């Protein structure tokens, strides 16, 4: 074993360890509101928007507030820093990333999952007849 190979191996191992640690550290876990409440960490929660509940944008704080239910049907108020996400109304599912704070879920990002046009939608075809 010469010095080159040893130093190479050391560098590779160090890089991989560094990568793995950062990976574990910055992984945002998928969870539900019940668990999100228990941990202070940044998490993401998948669910559906409750259209019938209060949904508004507060111009003075520039926060968008809405209610959503997670996959276990637990309801929670979500306050997003920023405006209403694109495709919000038509999203079949939404994912809120953030952490629990004072009884509501404080999100800094909300992703929307669209009924992408790959899906067959019988109502859409009826409309276009």
């Amino acid at each position, binding site marked *: 074993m010469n010095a080159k190979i040893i130093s190479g191996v050391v560098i590779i191992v160090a890089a991989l360890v560094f990568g793995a640690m950062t990976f574990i550290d910055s992984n945002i876990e998928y969870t539900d509101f019940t668990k999100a409440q228990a941990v202070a960490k940044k998490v993401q929660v998948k669910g559906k928007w409750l259209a019938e509940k209060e949904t508004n*944008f507060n111009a003075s704080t520039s926060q968008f507030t809405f209610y959503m239910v997670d996959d276990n049907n637990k309801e929670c108020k979500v306050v997003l820093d920023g405006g209403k996400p694109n495709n919000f109304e038509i999203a079949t599912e939404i994912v809120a990333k953030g952490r629990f704070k004072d009884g509501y879920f404080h999100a800094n990002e909300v992703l929307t999952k669209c009924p992408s046009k790959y*899906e067959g939608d019988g109502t859409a075809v009826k409309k276009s007849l």
Partner: protein
Amino acid sequence: MLGAILVKITFAAAIAATILYILQHRKASEDILRLARLFYFGSVAGILSVAGLLLYYILTHQFHYYYVWSYSSTDLPLSLLISTLYAGQEGSFLLWALFTGIIGVFLLRYSSKKGYEPELMSVYTAIFTFLILMLVVKNPFKFIWEQFPDELLKVGVAPTDGTNFMWIDQARGLWSQIPVEGKGLNALLQNYWMVIHPPILFIGFTSMSIPFAYAVAGLLKRDYVSWIRVATPWTAFGSLALGTGIILGGYWAYETLGWGGYWGWDPVENSSLVPWLVCVASIHTMLAQRKNGSYIKTNFILSMFCFILVLYSTFLTRSGVLGETSVHSFVDPGMWVYWLLLIVIGTFVFVGFGLLVKRWKEIPVAPVEHTFISREFALFLGASALVFVSIFILIGTSSPIITNIFKGKTSAVDPSFYVTTTLPLGVAIALLSGLGQILWWKNSKSDVLLKQLMLPAILALMFTVVTVFFGATHVSMIIFIFSSAFALFTNILVGYRIIQGNPKMAGGAITHVGIALMFLGFVSSAKYDDVKTVNLEQGKEVEALGYKLKYVGYEPIARGRFAFNVEVQKDGEKFVVSPVMFKESENGSLIRNPDIVNLLTKDFYVSPLSLEAGDQEQAANEITINEIEPLEIAGMSIRYLGYEFTQSKEKGNYLVAKLEVTKNGKKEIVMPTMRNMTGDISFDPARHSSGISFTIKAMNPTKDKAQSSITLAVEGIHAHGEIKERKSDTLVVEASVKPFINLVWIGTFSLIIGFAITIYRRWQEAMRNEAWK
């Protein structure tokens, strides 16, 4: 019918060409070669006619095709209508196959001159075949009634009322109703970037298969060394095309989609960046191999990974495995894509790396003859750094899959993961791209090296001090700025010398100048930007980030969109930015496009958030109360005291509700009325002295006090209980200043020019040497 048949014929021709080329490799014969070419050209003609046919159906609005109905509509302008050809899953595979076919024609001519045709084309046509297979499985010519039989298929007499229909089987009386309008193109995609970006990106994807094909062809021919000379111009072309595609995508995100930046570490962006990085790494190790014959195996491995990673990228973004972890929202396209892509990746990995393992012992090993301070070693380290960046990005992007395997739950990494892991490597890449230019091949004399290092190092240091003076903070950022500045100055100095000698050799230096400028632009625009949310009441001037902003009103622009004009003033200069917001008609989703003032030293970026209508906050609150329990709302206590019912011939029947409203200790009686004049019901609101009005919405008048209830609309209260005066419209925007973002774009240009020069040089070189064997 015609389309589906054409796809199958094309598929058959591509398979035939692949088999014939493999036969030709086994046992050369003029006849087989001629036949192989014939079938290949046939398959290219086939894919051209498939694309032409689909385009024809789109342009003529033949909505009885499911694909045409799904992505296009009659109101799209021509350029966007053409772009719907590749707006969907099937269409994008079609575009990819189309480019693969066309580029293959040039590749065929080139490789036949180099004596590489049978081997190269057998691999390349196999890739082409796989792309057409995607179209066979997911047919873009599916009829709409195959998708919606329940809604559309009818049996019986054909309609005579003008309904759009089509006979399917007239003898059996089977017909289908046909839509008169398509679903249209996603509003987010409706701009000229949709016309430019995907084709360039797919040319890049196509080109990534060429290094793979050459590497496997080299193994097949047992040519372990000189294949890289044949492959280099194509590898460089692939880097250029894919790199341009990636940057254009970033610019699209920045300029139109309003994500606030040009890069979001999104899986779609990442997964096209990774093959590009590996391809760029391979250019460097190929250069080292040209000079001293080492890194032979490395070049095989990297070249193969260029394509394998494109396939993996396709798998990540098309199979639905990422699910909801991406902004590019995907819906599971079905298990077939998932398995087919996995099988295809497996096949190409097996063919490529299987052959490499089989030939491993045969491959010559050149002893490493250079020292630690040599250009070869810098190239090797640089390529390693690029590979490590790729590995980290790949791990981060695959996080949903990794966490699913180990924890049973999918989760993504925070974008900070990418910054943390790639920043140190970025520093290394920047330093090496400077060092590599002044180091000599084989060995450098340290005293000469130090002398050459002096000037760029001093310049970089001065530059860094200036940036710190102007507000650069964070040690890691300052180190990154220094190393990027070092790369910049070294490459400018070296590049200047080369251009005076032989400009054709300056490609590398110009490319590295571009990279250094981009690095500096990334730091200044993404790390030192200022962001602020501003409320702009119409007509009122607001100061933010050193700019004076005034919202002057909105105006309709093309296709139902609205531009919101904001006057921006700074140092006596005046601009108008017009961010755009509009409701996507079909489903009412709000689409927002930012607008940018591009100044020499910065961009002023205005992204609209919402328009708050002046009277919107005076929203009505509906309350329901019964005669027993009082209700508290907005600092008032309301008691329902009952109702009076009066019948009169002249005035009709009317109900008067009696409410006792207590506010600030003062009691007041308010009486809203409901009239019924010969079946015509009307409501008269009653106003409290504070200006709040009450209107009856519904009543349940009974004798039972607990059951007797009234529903009222209460208007004029603010969320905090205060009475609100009427306000003008307020435009809410996110304003940001992105310093020196122009460096990113100038750097991109420099990068593209550098690559173009390199391609030209390597192309000429390849053409001059007609017969390497």
